[in-house]
């Protein structure tokens, strides 16, 4: 047996069946150095900006070269806008827009987010070509709405098909 194993094993991939890979152990499913997240993605930089009253700022994120933002408005604690994906024309699978809300002193008082998720298992109905633009509406937490004078947005999640 040892001779046969040697003849088969040299320079031959996975060739010794007695040492065959245990498939149940092959999948890598744990990462000791990786700290599991404890919450939803935030948007770095929201605390550092001080948008002018009545304005909506934009904080940098990892996908800024993939979209444009326009029609940004804030009123009565609600941020609205339109995001247009410029990097792909395939289906938009995931999008999250995070908004920071600021008081009259320019202090960040709360955050909220708008999420788009395309369920690929659901029937899509009759659709034409993928729409590159999505409109979003982000509402400040109820207790804060009256204090909101400005906002800032960022995009921590963006995936096209």
């Amino acid at each position: 047996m040892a001779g046969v194993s040697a003849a088969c094993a040299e320079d031959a991939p996975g060739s010794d069946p007695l040492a065959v890979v245990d498939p149940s152990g092959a999948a890598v499913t744990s990462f000791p150095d990786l700290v599991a997240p404890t919450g939803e993605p935030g948007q770095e930089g929201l605390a550092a900006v001080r948008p002018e009253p009545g304005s909506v700022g934009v904080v940098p994120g990892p996908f800024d070269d993939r979209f444009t933002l326009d029609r940004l408005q804030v009123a009565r604690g609600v941020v609205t806008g339109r995001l247009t994906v410029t990097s792909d024309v395939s289906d938009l699978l995931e999008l999250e827009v995070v908004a920071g809300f600021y008081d009259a002193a320019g202090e960040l008082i709360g955050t909220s987010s708008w999420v788009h998720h395309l369920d690929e298992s659901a029937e899509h109905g009759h659709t034409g070509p993928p729409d590159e633009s999505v409109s979003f509406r982000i509402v400040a937490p109820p207790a804060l709405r009256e204090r909101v004078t400005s906002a800032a947005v960022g995009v921590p999640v963006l995936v096209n098909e």
Partner: protein
Amino acid sequence: MRTPARGTAALLTLALAAGLAGSAGIAQAQDKGSHDDSRRIKNVIYLLGDGMGRTHVTAARERYYGAAGNLVMETLPAVGQISTYAVQQGSGQPGEAGFVPNLVTDSASAATAWSSGVKTYNAALGVDAKGTVVPTLMELAHQSGLRTGNVSTAEITDATPAGQMSHVLLRGCQGPSYSAAACQNTSLVGTLPTSDVRVTPVADQIARNQTADVILGGGLSRFDAADETALESNGYDVLGSPASQTVATKTDLAGASSDKVFALFNKGNLTIEKFKRENPASVQAQEPDLAAMTTKAIQLLSSGKKGFYLQVEGALIDKRSHANDAGQTLEEMKAFDEAVRVAKEFAAKDGHTLVVVTADHECAGFNIIEKGTFTNAEATTPPANVDSGNTANSSTPPRATGGTKDPARAAFAPATFRTPDDAAGVLDGSADASLWLTYLSGNHTGADVPVFAYGPGSDELEGSIDNTDLFDIVGDALRLTS
């Protein structure tokens, strides 16, 4: 059609059987290894043209080599076709109770089919239709001591490359951030703890699992400083920098010589060849093409004694087919075929390499139509291909003018291209050009896809097979399965 054993349970059965019936397993290896050295397979190079249907191949051939010519892939002696259907979430496997097919796959479930040998639902990577983790061929190869490589012109966290080196319930869970919407599939398995691999962003997995020794492609935006630290601590030579979001260049790649290399050349997908060709002084022209990445990957991997398993994806065929841009699609087909050339030339010299060339699905119902004719379409406009932020993608395919039934729908007019058989002076976009191309839609189709193969064991790819059969064929070739 083949009916090989597949799936996690089958793999476990195989492992136990190999242990319990050792003499039978050794006898089989002896038969393949020592009595027929000409058929001994040491390496597998698996090239995947994303979205590449049969017509994509024909159109590219006619465009670049004329009607009587051949792409390199068409010179490979073994030819077959592959069924690509997926299944619905929660479905049983074919032949099992509760089997519910989905006739049009996406890249994720297709990647899982050939990587792990199971049918799964669209969006799933490295998990079966019930959400159970299944090992991939690249993980099996890595564990058995083979060198492994994963190359793509897409973000390396995208479905096709990720299907070999991650396990997630939803392909959108790519990183750099976890989000419940993008990562959790509560309707299938409930809410999982964020420590579960199935909801761990693909980028975090790739940076830590060491499944692929050589990783080349795009998607730097998905990786961060912690990922760079993890890669370096695992012995990777990281070209460019995720921490500073500095992309690697083709010059960096040319100088790489380590056993383990991680190099991403764009923050997103790599740039289309048409733009790089037309803008040679651009930053994007510093990205290597697929042939260069394949050449380098083979060079780095072939130093191993035990052999290697390399997956190479031409991803932009699909992405530009979604955009219904025939000109860009054709150039990406050519670039992919040049990578096939690299693989074939290596295999011809090496003598113990199986080369497999195929696709995950067809994209957009690409058609060659009779010169001078037009098709009808239901939509009011075709997919947009004007990208204000990424002007590399903006282009207007040369379309035939005049003769449309409805001038207002000229945007749907076929794109026309000259071929080498046309007289000199015939221009792209003219009615005189021979090759008239059109698209059915901007989405995938359920057509079977072609497969071409070269080298020992290539006859296994002839005929009609299913995409899950690819797992068994490659696994058997590398002696990772039965």
